């Protein structure tokens, strides 16, 4: 099975979906001639031409608005927001338009739309090229929020997203674009949107994560294994709608839960998972539910030491897990 990077899996998924369905097209800033700022669409312009790889003006709300309109028409747009940090001008289109179209029309209008956006810090991007935005969208019924952490899932989930009749926010951990490699089978497959995945079974503690933090969680779990702590790692993959069953089954088995994300703590996505566990698995717990998250500061600072203080990493995860296992 060929090994590839996360970004290559994303590129390949788009290539295959463009080939499969003539209604699929891609628009966004520099997605065409330039091949995307992270090269997620590299080579696709030459292969599919300017009608299907459409370079847009620098105007995020219009990129999303046009995508919604084209999706209403019956097209299958894939939109690239160059950095998740730049998605905020488009919030109205995503929250007030895309998420509500089906509901306001009693199912008559559908918005089969994928909005891809690289997110997250740890790349020296500073305040406006490092943000995590998942909590905003995981609060909005009508949207689905997907975050892959492996090349296999990135390809399979992106292909599923393109075929899904609903608007999907597809967030890609950009630090992992070239760092994370993995096996991707040749040929057609999709990974269903919805189910979480137990990526490492364990007995002592459940570690819930997604994106880059899932990658780090696995490293932390490996480290703790040598210390005799058997960590179960769950890659959430789809944040909304969330796979409660996998989460609760895991906690019922291990009786301890640690949720990790790099977005800041307060009002973050981990709070929802903690509430679900408290609500539905309270009697199964042997310890308080813990969250390890970015600090409550407005942005990821630029300077390297400050960025390191901000970022969650395998050592911080291992320390938090160790403490919880001993509680």
């Amino acid at each position, binding site marked *: 099975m060929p090994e590839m990077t996360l970004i290559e899996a994303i590129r390949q998924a788009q290539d295959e979906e463009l080939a499969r369905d003539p209604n699929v097209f891609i628009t966004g800033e520099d997605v065409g001639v330039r091949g995307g700022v992270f090269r997620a669409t590299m080579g696709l312009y030459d292969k599919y031409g300017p009608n299907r790889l459409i370079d847009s003006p620098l105007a995020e709300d219009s990129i999303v*608005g046009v995508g919604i*309109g084209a999706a209403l028409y019956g097209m299958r747009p894939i939109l690239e927001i160059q950095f998740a940090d730049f998605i905020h001008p488009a919030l109205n289109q995503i929250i007030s338009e895309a998420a509500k179209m*089906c509901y*306001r029309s009693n*199912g008559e209008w559908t918005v089969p739309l994928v909005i891809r956006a690289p997110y997250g810090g740890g790349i020296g991007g500073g305040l406006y090229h490092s943000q995590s935005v998942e909590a905003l969208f995981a609060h909005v019924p009508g949207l689905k929020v997907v975050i892959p952490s492996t090349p296999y899932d990135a390809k399979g989930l992106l292909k599923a997203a393109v075929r899904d*009749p609903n608007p999907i926010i597809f967030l890609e951990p950009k630090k992992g674009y070239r760092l994370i490699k993995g096996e991707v089978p040749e040929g057609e497959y999709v990974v269903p949107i919805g189910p979480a995945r137990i990526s490492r079974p364990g007995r002592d503690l459940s570690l819930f994560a997604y994106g880059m933090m899932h990658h780090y969680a696995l490293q932390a779990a490996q480290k703790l294994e040598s210390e005799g702590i058997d960590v179960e790692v769950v890659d959430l993959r789809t944040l909304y709608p969330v796979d409660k069953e996998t989460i609760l089954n895991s906690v019922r088995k291990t009786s301890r839960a640690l949720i990790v994300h790099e977005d800041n703590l307060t009002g973050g996505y981990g709070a929802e998972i903690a509430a679900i566990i408290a609500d539905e698995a309270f009697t199964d717990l042997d310890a308080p539910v813990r969250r390890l998250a970015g600090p409550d500061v407005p942005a990821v600072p630029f300077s390297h030491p400050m960025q390191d203080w901000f970022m969650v990493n395998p050592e911080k995860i291992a320390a938090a897990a160790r403490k919880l296992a001993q509680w």
Partner: protein
Amino acid sequence: MDKQTGLKLYHEMVLIRRTEEKAAELYQQGKIGGFLHLYIGQEAVSTGLISARLPQDRVITAYRDHGVAINCGLPAKEILAEMLGKVTGVSRGKGGSMHLADVSKNFWGGHAIVGAHLPLAAGLALGDLYQKQDGVTICMFGDGATNIGYFHEALNLSKVWNLPVLWVCENNQYGMGTAVDRASAVSQIRQKAEGYGMTNSRVDGMNLVAVREAAQKILSEIRNGSGPQLLEITTYRYRGHSMGDPERYRKPEEIHLWQEQDPIGIFRRHLLDNGLAVEAELNAEDDAVEEEIREAVIFAESSPEPQAEELFRDIYVEA
């Protein structure tokens, strides 16, 4: 214009006005809740414009959408039922006054966020361009919307991509309570298209015939590849921005001045002067509208309200 078309368009304009007068009454009785934005005074704009479209042309508009919905062929009874929040309404009671829509009539909705539907219109037009269809998307919005970023982005993008879209600004002189020249740097909205190299024009929106002829010409040009165009239609709303507007921003004399050139009156005279109708025929249309409204109110008031389970319906499309 032939006699049949003349009578049909006259009927539509009167139907819009009477439907809205009835809606205002129902609102004052507390039967319609929330917000209600009346189109009275502007009837010739959408009636003339939409009479010029072909079936494949999409129409999308802002929240002042009752008239547009009627012109697109939505029945008055389903519109009134929607305003009353009934399950028989065009949006099964989920939308209300501002969110009428019916794709089967190629009416892509009223939209409540000012300016936000302009990029959607560009996307619909992109669909026609992509699929090599000859439809034109007609996107209507008020003068206030031309001050928000969406307008400028959508005009620019539509020109760059050569989209088959007709941008229609209904300039009714006020963005809510703010006069156009107090909010817009240029007093003629059409001037804004100049910055995007876009063909633009301006027409008197109290005159249905003028609107219709302008729209026919421009739609044909766009269909033949002219690229997007902007049409400014000057008009005036007689009522407040919405029900309960104290209207401190204008004087009654100003309203009376506009009412002297009432669009229904002008068109009625046009039909009579050009031998397209006689008084008795127009009176018969008036009577037919009265009866239609009477039945529509009975239908709307006697219709059931939605059941609680509707709340959780249609959040997602089942894959």
